[in-house]
C-alpha cells in the first residue's frame, strides 16, 4: 500500500515485510479528513492482521492543525489497539536541529499511553 507524496500531502507507505507503516513529507491538505480516511482504514486492517510489532513512523516536515487533529485521532486508535494486546511502536522523527518538530513529538508523546519514541534522523 502506497500513497505518493504531493506538494501538500505526505507519502504513506505500508511495508508488510518489515511490519512498518510510515508517513513522510508535508501535510496541509484542504480537506484533511478525506486525505486521512484511506490511511486510517489501511492502517487498521494491517494492524488487525499483524502478529509482530508494528512500527508506525511519522516524519512530517510541516502540518496544519486539521492534519494534527487527524493524526491525533489515528494515534488514539493505535492506543486502543495497544490496550487490546497489539504491539505498536510510534516513532516520531525529526531532522537534527529542528527543535520545533522535536518539541511537537515530545508534546504528543505525553498525550498517549503507548510506546512512543522521538528520534533524530
Amino acid at each position, binding site marked *: 500500500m502506497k500513497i505518493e507524496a504531493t506538494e501538500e500531502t505526505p507519502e504513506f507507505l505500508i511495508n508488510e515485510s518489515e511490519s512498518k507503516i510510515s508517513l513522510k513529507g508535508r501535510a496541509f*491538505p484542504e480537506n484533511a*479528513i478525506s486525505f486521512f480516511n484511506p490511511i486510517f482504514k489501511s492502517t487498521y486492517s494491517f494492524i488487525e492482521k499483524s502478529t509482530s510489532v508494528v512500527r508506525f513512523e511519522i516524519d512530517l516536515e*510541516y502540518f*496544519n492543525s*486539521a492534519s494534527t487533529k487527524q493524526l491525533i485521532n489515528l494515534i488514539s486508535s493505535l492506543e486502543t489497539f495497544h490496550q487490546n494486546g497489539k504491539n505498536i511502536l510510534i516513532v516520531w522523527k525529526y531532522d537534527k*536541529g529542528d527543535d*520545533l518538530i522535536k518539541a511537537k513529538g515530545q508534546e504528543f508523546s505525553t*498525550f498517549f499511553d503507548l510506546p512512543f519514541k522521538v528520534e533524530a534522523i
Partner: protein
Amino acid sequence: MNLNNQDDFNLAYLGQFDDKITNLLIDLSSNQASNLQSGKSNRKISFLIAECFQNVIRHSDNLEKIENNDFFLLKKAGNVFYIFSINLIKKEKVQKIENAISTINELDKDELKKMYLKELENSEISDKGGAGLGLIEIARKTNNKLIFDFTESESGDYLFHFLTTLNLSNEDEESTSNELIFNFKKIYSKMLAKNTLFFYKGDFKQNTILPILSIVEANYLPSNFSKSNSKKMYLVAIEALQNISRHSLEKENKKEGTFTIKEHDNNLVIEFSNLVSGSIKPELENEFNYLISLDEESLGDLYKKRLKTILPSNQISSKVGLIEIIKNAGKNNIKFDFKSSENEDNNFIYNLAVSFSMN
C-alpha cells in the same frame, strides 16, 4: 490597499527578482488570472505577465546592488487587467527605451505586425537577449498604447515605470494614462514607505494558497530566520491562510482576503485579513481574548483537550488552528482587531498580524 477597495484582485511584490521568485510570481499571477477568466483572455494575460517579468528582469541594471527597488503589480478591476512594473536602469538606456516605445505607440495594428516580422528576421540581439520583440508583442496583444515614464533616482540612475493594460470589454477606459501611472506609483511609494514587501488581495482557494506558501518559503524564510523560527512562521502562514479559505464570508462564490508581508523594527510581520459576518464576531473575539489570557501551560492543556475530543462528523472545526498560531508565534507577537467594513453594513474585517523577530 486593503479589503475595502473595489478591485477583484491585487498582487504586489517589492524586492529582488531572481529566477525562483520570478517563476513563483508568474505561477501565482497566472493561477489567479485563470481563476478570474477563462479561455483565450486567460492565455493572453498569462503571456503578458510573463513578458512583463522578462522586461523587469532583462532590463534591470543591478546598479550598485540597490536593494528593494524593483516592483511588480498585477491588478484586476472590473474588466481591466493592469500589469505594472518598476525597475532601475542606467541613464544611457533611457533614450533607447523611450524611442522604442514611442515608435511602437505610433503604429497601428498592421504596422505593428510588419514591425514584429521584421524584428524577427533581423533582430539585433542585445547582451541580455531582448530585441524589442517583447514590447511589440505586448502592444499587439493588448491593442493598447504602452504607458511608461522615467524618474531620476537619487543615485542618478532612472526608475523605469511601465504599465500594460488589457481591457477585456470593448468599453473605453475612463482614466487617462497619466492618472493611471500616477496611481500605481503612489502604491509603490506607499509600499516602500511602509516596508511592505508582498501584498495579495483576492480569492483564497487552496490553489492560491500553495503558490503563496512557496513564495514565503523561497523568499522570506531562509535569509531572515533560524530553522526553528522559519518553521514557526511557515506554520502560522499555513494556518492563517487556510483559515481565510475556510471561514471567510463567501461572496459571489469567492472567499476574499488579504495577505501582507512587511518589515518593521527588525521584525518580519505577516498580516491576514478577511471579511467575517457580524453574527460570528462576538464568538471569534471572545475565543481570541480567552486564548490570549491563558498561560503557556493552560493553553497546552486546552490544546490537548481539543485535539483529543472526538468531534461529531458534521463538525469540521476542532478550534485548534488559532491555538496553533498562538503557540508558534507567542502571544505577545500577535495582534488582532475588527474593523467595520465600509461596503457591508453588518460585516467586519478581521485582521490578524503576527511578528517574527529577524534577530
